[in-house]
């Protein structure tokens, strides 16, 4: 198993949470939307935090590539955090259209971000961090996978 495998799976998990929040808001089920968005935010934050504090620093240390692809990914994380906040503000005001607009934007940004990670950055990590694969893979699994399994 590739060391980044838990991250791939966690992307899918976050997608599902996103879709649930979006569907609830579209149906005007505000309490459900509140709960699902909160859960989505928590998992997304967990994912970003895991990458930014564990995977990226390890990759940067192993390859010396600082300010390269990981920096771009960090910037996109910041953009996505902004959009999630925009969704939250719209939800607080119970503005369905504002929520949908921010959600639509986040979805595309998030999907193209995930594709870049899954097709480019994660394979680079798998190769560059091969010597620490087991330790890192387990650490990633602990931080991410547990949540996927328990919350389903």
């Amino acid at each position: 198993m590739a060391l980044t495998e838990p991250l791939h799976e966690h992307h899918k998990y976050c997608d599902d949470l996103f879709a649930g929040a979006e569907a609830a808001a579209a149906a005007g089920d505000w309490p459900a939307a509140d709960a699902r968005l909160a859960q989505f935010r928590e998992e997304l934050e967990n994912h970003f935090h895991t990458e930014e504090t564990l995977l990226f620093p390890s990759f940067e240390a192993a390859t010396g590539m600082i300010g390269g692809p990981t920096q771009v990914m960090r910037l996109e994380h910041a953009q996505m955090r902004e959009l999630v906040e925009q969704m939250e503000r719209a939800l607080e005001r119970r503005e369905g259209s504002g929520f949908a607009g921010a959600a639509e934007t986040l979805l595309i940004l998030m999907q193209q971000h995930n594709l870049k990670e899954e097709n480019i950055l994660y394979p680079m990590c798998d190769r560059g961090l091969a010597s620490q694969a087991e330790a890192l893979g387990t650490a990633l699994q602990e931080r991410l996978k547990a949540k996927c399994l328990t919350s389903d």
Partner: protein
Amino acid sequence: MHPNLSFEQAPPISVPFRFFLTAPLFGIAAGVLLAVEGGDMLASRWMPALLAATHFIVAGFMLQAMTGALMQFIPVAAGGNIWRPRWVAGFVHPLSILALLFLVAAFLTQRPPLFFAAGLGFALALGFFVLVAGLALWRTPAKGATIVALRIAVFGLAATLILGVMLTSALAQGSAPVLTLVDIHLAWGLAGWALMLLAGVSYFVVPMFQLTPPYPTWFARSLPFALLAFLLPWSAQLLGVPAAGRQALGLAGLALGAAYALATLWLQSRRRRKLTDTTFLFFRTAMLSLIALFLSALAFASVPGLAETPRAAVWLGMLAIPGVFVSAIMGMLYKIVPFLCWLHLQRLCGLAVLPPTMHEILAEQAMRRQFHLHLATLVCLLAAVWLPLLARPAGLLLAADCAWLGANLIAAVRAFRAFRNRIRAAA
């Protein structure tokens, strides 16, 4: 291998947008032509006005949208470096429009020099585009089914172009072209270029927009080669190979299209995103048209004499061109244009100011209403094939349909400009 994941690879927004914003004009022109000419125009696929209107759509609407999309997609999604994109767009965009205008004028007036000018214009504009796009796709380190499909699609464009130039050369010399050549030209254009590109892009965007599972790898990898396996024997007709299996071969080609459509609908039925947006509706319309295209051809083939009815070919063309490709392109533009506006604004303001969301740039309701008009347009166009009385209203609807698309895209660009100017004024 991929040192750069950044936005810097994206071309300036004007590069794709100049193509996207001119595309609807040619749809309007095709509609106006049908409204002016009326029912006779749809009597046979060889009517000069129908050839003119068809090229307004395929070499205008579709070509503009597809070249613009490739200028954006190759660097951003396929990791390929387009050489001087602004310069390339500045050459290809006006010259391809000029060539199209010559071609349409040539069909309508049947003047040989106009055919010559059209052939020359397309050879220069598209020959250059094929070279630049082909080189970028050849050199990209990225791999996968999308890259393979895009490479073959650009080859398909080159084949369509060469065959088209052969046809215009014959007409420029005042001689009747070989009719078989027309069928080969249109097969390469619709299957080798347009469907190949649509498939390659679908592999990427269908899972992305609706959170569907990915296309099965074996399917995604084999479809482009299966299409080639249809196109090569189809092209062998030109070498005098007996056309005995022609009908069966044609049906096999259309079956491949239907298989792609079924795969797409199947994936979409398993989507995890519950929201039905306008792009999804346009895409589903395109896929259902693609299946209807195959079923129609099958029905025509099984009823003796029906396939030879001149209007039968027009019906198939109506399903393929406005039904499949115009629908798919409209749906794609409604995602690409607002997202690019957002992305460029976001980059401009950094994280300090929030740019408007995609729906604030282009309202969902405006897109949805235009989709309903598009459906009405399709129904009326298809009915007009058999009921000439409906041709003029169908033409007006097509013009209105494309004008509305254009108005929506312009509204998005206005929102983009307004916000950009505010940021610049504040800075």
